[in-house]
C-alpha cells in the first residue's frame, strides 16, 4: 500500500502587458518629473490622486490635470511588523495614508526618518524622491515620505478623509 497523494506541484507562469490608460499615463509622466499629478472631476470638482480616469462617485472622466504639492498630512497609519514577500524594507515600518495638499483623496505611502513610536495622525510630511537620473514613470520614483517640520495639522482639516 503506497502513501496517499496529498499534493502535486503544477507550476504556472503567465506574462501580462498592462495598459495604464490615458489618466494613469499622465500620472506616470508626472512621477517621471518628480511631480504628483491630480485630476479634477468636472462635476463634483474633487481632485483625485492616482486617478484611473474617472470620478468614482460621478462616473465621469476626470479630464482636468492639476499639479499637486510635494507636502501633505498623515491622516491615519499603521506600523507593520510582518514581512511580506517582495518587501525589502526593514521591520517595523510605517504605512500611512497621506493626503497631499490640494488633493481630496489620500493614498498609502511609506514613512521614514521618524521612529515608529513618534508617528501620529496629523503629522505633516513631504515626499522624498529618488535622484533625478533615477526618476521614472513609476511610483518607485517616490522613495518615501518624511516629516517636514511643520506643526501637526488640526484633526478638523483632514477628518473627512478617514
Amino acid at each position: 500500500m503506497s502513501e496517499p497523494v496529498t499534493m502535486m506541484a503544477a507550476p504556472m507562469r503567465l506574462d501580462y502587458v498592462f495598459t495604464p490608460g490615458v489618466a494613469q499615463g499622465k500620472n506616470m509622466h508626472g512621477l517621471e518629473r518628480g511631480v504628483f499629478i491630480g485630476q479634477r472631476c468636472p462635476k463634483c470638482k474633487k481632485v483625485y490622486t492616482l486617478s484611473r480616469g474617472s470620478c468614482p462617485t460621478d462616473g465621469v472622466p476626470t479630464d482636468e490635470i492639476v499639479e499637486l504639492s510635494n507636502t501633505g498630512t498623515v491622516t491615519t497609519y499603521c506600523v507593520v511588523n510582518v514581512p511580506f514577500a517582495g518587501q525589502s524594507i526593514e521591520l517595523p515600518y510605517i504605512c500611512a495614508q497621506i493626503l497631499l495638499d490640494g488633493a481630496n483623496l489620500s493614498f498609502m505611502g511609506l514613512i521614514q526618518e521618524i521612529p515608529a513610536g513618534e508617528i501620529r495622525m496629523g503629522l505633516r510630511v513631504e515626499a522624498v524622491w529618488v535622484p533625478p537620473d533615477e526618476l521614472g514613470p513609476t511610483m518607485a520614483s517616490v522613495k518615501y515620505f518624511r516629516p517636514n517640520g511643520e506643526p501637526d495639522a488640526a484633526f478638523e482639516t483632514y477628518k473627512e478623509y478617514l
Partner: protein
Amino acid sequence: MSERCAVIGIGQTVAKSKREDVSIAGLVREAVVMAVEDAGLTFADIDAVVVGKAPDMFEGVMMPELYLAGALGAVGKPMMRVHTAGSVGGSTAIVASHLVASGIHDRVLTVAFEKQSDSDAMWALSVPQPFSSPLLAGAGGYFAPIIRAYMHRSGAPRDVGMKVAVKDRLHALKNPYAHLHLPDISLQMVEDSIMLWDPLHYLESCPSSDGAAAMVIGSERAAAQAETDTGRRPAWIHGMAMRSEPTMFAGRDQVNPQAGRDCAADLYRQAGISDPRADFDMAEVYVPFSWYEPMWLENLGFCAEGDGWKLTEAGATSLIDGGDIPWNCSGGVLSSNPIGASGMLRFLETALQIRGEAGEHQVPDARRALGQAYGGGSQFFSMWVVAVDKP
C-alpha cells in the same frame, strides 16, 4: 410579488489550514452532500446551483465552477458563479435565494468555498501590479489604519479589540467546525502575540482556512416538504439586501461606511426591524479583525455611533457572559476564514441558530437572527434576516 423562501438544508466542512486529504472537488462535495441530505433531498431534487468564491488566484483555477459542475451535481442544471470580494459568500446565498423568491425555482443549492492551501493567498492578494504603490502589507495593512481612525474617533480603550479576539475564540471552542481551537485563550495571550500591524496583534486577526459551506434554499412548498421529511424547521428569510460603494473617493467614511448603513436600513425595512439590539436574538457578522466588532455594531445600528466598544466591553455580544445580543457564537471569521465561504458561514450560522441546531454554541430560543458579510475595502455589503416565524 416576491415568494416566501427559507433555508431548508445546511452543510459545512471542518475548516482547517490545509485540507490535504481532499481535492477542490472533494472539499465542495463534502459540504453540498451534507446540505442536500440535511434537506432530505437528493441531487435530482435540486433545480439550480449558485457558486461563490473569492478571487480565482487563491486556487490557481480560472472559473473553477466549470470544472466543479459534476461534483456540485449541477450537470443539466442552471449554474451561476458569483464574485463580490469578501462579501461573496453572503451575496451568493442572496442570489440563490432570489432564484426562489422570484418564483423561478423551488430548491436551489448554494455553495461557497476556498482552498487557499492549493495556492498562496497572500501572494494572490499582492500580485505586483504596475502603476500602483508597491507598499502592500496584506489585508491587515489596509484595515489597521482604518481601525486606528475608529479608535481616535470613538475614544475606545486599546484593549477592546483584544476582548473581541478572546470572546470569539471562546465561542469557537463550542463549534466543532471552527478552524482555531485555542483552549488557553486569554487577554494576556492576545497581548503577548506579535503586533503584526499596529494596533492589530496576530491573535486579533483571522486565520487562513480551507473550507466550504452550503445551503439549500427552498420555496414555501419545498420548506413544508423538508420539514415533514426531516423534522427540521425551516429558517425563513425575512429580508436580504446588498449595497456597494466605490473603493476610494473624497470624503469616504471608511470607518462607518454609508453602504453598510444603507444596506442595513433596506434590510430592516423588509424585515420590520426597528431596534436591532432588541429585535435580534443573535447575529453573525463578518469580523476578520477584532476591532470590526465595535465598528459594525455601530454601522448596523445596534447602538449609537461611537458606542460600539461599550457593548463589547460590557459583554453584551458574548454568549458565554450571557450577553443580550451574542455576536459570532460560531467563533466567527476570527476563528475560521475560508475567504469565499466566510460570508456564507455567517449566513449559514444564523440559519443553524434559528433551527435550534447550533449545539453547544446555540443561543437559547433564538427566533430572529442577522447575517452580514462585507468585502473589498469595506465597500461591498450583503445581509439577511432569518427567523423561526414565517414572514
